[in-house]
């Protein structure tokens, strides 16, 4: 007798990412807001913090399908979640149909959609035909999308996050193929495979591609250089996309979609809370998140240097309690403050 395994999670109006993308303007009077995938950093504690600040859909970091379907240790290291981790898109790095179908079968009961990473510029992944290599391999990419949609139809949402080509018409052709293959929505990062992140995102390219595929009725999400709500609005107005995905902007300021131009102290307290409650976040990752948030808040340089000297999580807790008023869940005012809560108020 064959075993009956869990099926793809049921999609409702609350967790269906495509429904959310299409209806946010009606229900919330604004376009959809998305926290994109970040290598190492989009782990569960960070995802949960983002959800407090008007983020509609959140991505996991890229998970390599090849490792996930073959190795239980990789699974445990790469993906942790819980019931409140929704709507969630699991991003996958993959270079063949078989691994992808197997990955989808295993992951779809625990998320609300799957995104194929076609934007990662890291050369080790490109050599494997993963990440942004896929935008130069439209046959393979569209066959992967077709295979998933043929098997699962509308029960599994499938997105592709692509970069642009030097020749934008190649990107338009790729998007048309993806639409033919049944992709649910497309996220466009407005840089080419070799463009550095210090170079401004190319909104003209996103606008051009969006206009060219408008008649396909497949939503387009813009990604790149969204650091404030002003950026969010500018990107929407300029490109005509259906929503905006922020990535680096949220790492510095998880509350940016709530209209905070700098990271509020509340986000930092929430991050501490979730990181400790869920456990398992390596010290260096914890430190990096805190470094990014405190930098956004404008922490004075001397204290920032001290922060970066902390070698263990226990030391970090001591340091925060010595320098700041770091409230815990249940204490009055927990996750409410905006400015840095120095212990010595003269520094405020």
């Amino acid at each position, binding site marked *: 007798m064959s075993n009956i395994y869990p099926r793809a999670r049921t999609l409702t109006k609350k967790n269906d990412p495509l429904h959310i993308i299409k209806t946010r303007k009606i229900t919330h009077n604004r376009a959809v807001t998305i926290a994109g995938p970040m290598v190492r950093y989009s782990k569960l504690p960070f995802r949960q913090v983002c959800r407090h600040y008007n983020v509609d859909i959140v991505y996991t970091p890229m998970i390599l399908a090849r490792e996930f379907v*073959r190795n239980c240790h990789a699974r445990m290291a790469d993906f942790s979640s819980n019931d409140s981790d929704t709507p969630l898109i699991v991003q996958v790095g993959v270079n063949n149909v078989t691994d992808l179908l197997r990955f989808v079968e295993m992951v779809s009961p625990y998320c609300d959609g799957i995104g194929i990473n076609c934007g990662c510029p890291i050369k080790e992944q490109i050599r494997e*035909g993963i990440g942004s290599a896929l935008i130069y391999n439209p046959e393979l990419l569209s066959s992967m999308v077709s295979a998933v949609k043929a098997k699962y139809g509308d029960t599994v949402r499938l997105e592709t996050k692509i970069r642009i080509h030097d020749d934008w018409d190649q990107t338009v052709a790729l998007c048309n193929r993806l639409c033919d293959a049944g992709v649910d929505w497309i996220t466009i990062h407005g840089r080419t495979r070799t463009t550095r992140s210090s170079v401004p995102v190319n909104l003209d390219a996103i606008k051009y591609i969006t206009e060219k595929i408008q008649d396909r009725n497949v939503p387009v999400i813009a990604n790149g250089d969204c650091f404030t709500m002003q950026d969010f609005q500018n990107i929407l107005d300029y490109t005509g996309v259906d929503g905006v995905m922020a990535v680096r902007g949220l790492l510095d300021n998880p509350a940016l979609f709530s209209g905070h131009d700098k990271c509020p102290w509340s986000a930092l307290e929430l991050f501490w809370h979730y990181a400790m409650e869920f456990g398992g976040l*390596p010290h260096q990752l914890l430190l990096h998140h805190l470094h990014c948030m405190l930098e956004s808040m404008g922490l004075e340089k001397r204290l920032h240097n001290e922060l970066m000297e902390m070698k263990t999580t226990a030391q970090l807790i001591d340091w925060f309690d010595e320098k700041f008023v770091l409230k815990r869940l249940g204490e009055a005012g927990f996750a409410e403050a905006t400015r840095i809560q120095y212990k010595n108020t003269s520094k405020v």
Partner: protein
Amino acid sequence: MFKKLSIVLSEMIGKELQKLQITAPTAVENGASAPNTCGRPNQAVTKPISLDSTTGEVMVRKSTGKTKIRKGQSTEEYESQREHFFEVEKGPVCTPEGWMTKEGPLPRLDSDPDFDIKLKQTRQKLTSHCHLLYYRKSYEECAQLCQVLISRFDVLENRKKLEKEIQELAHMLQRCKSSI
């Protein structure tokens, strides 16, 4: 029999291809050939070649330009992984708020052979538990746990490698004691 034959064939094809040093094709835009890189690492994009679509075996190119076969996964291997994932692992690691303190970590350490203290991941989980108690200012509980863990970490092989982990536990223990 045919399945075995196809596996042997794909291995043979892979080996022959490696001998011939056929490189996986690149996908340079407009179909132009890869430019001369003048000693710089080859930045051209790889198109993996599918060698066996039933197992996901593909050939990719290494940084040296030579090809490498990424082994496939047979249906049996996949089914075994899938069964383990759904039946044993019960899906991905689930960490709702409060999961760590629902039950102490020590009973599991003594009863679950997979929760092996020799593994770094297990020790990290145990230390995470101490971090949570320390963060919550539950100093008495934290001190107790740190004490037990130090004694257990202390007797492990390669203790020197664990020095940093033990030092952190000792730090928390000392701070907890002074706060109780």
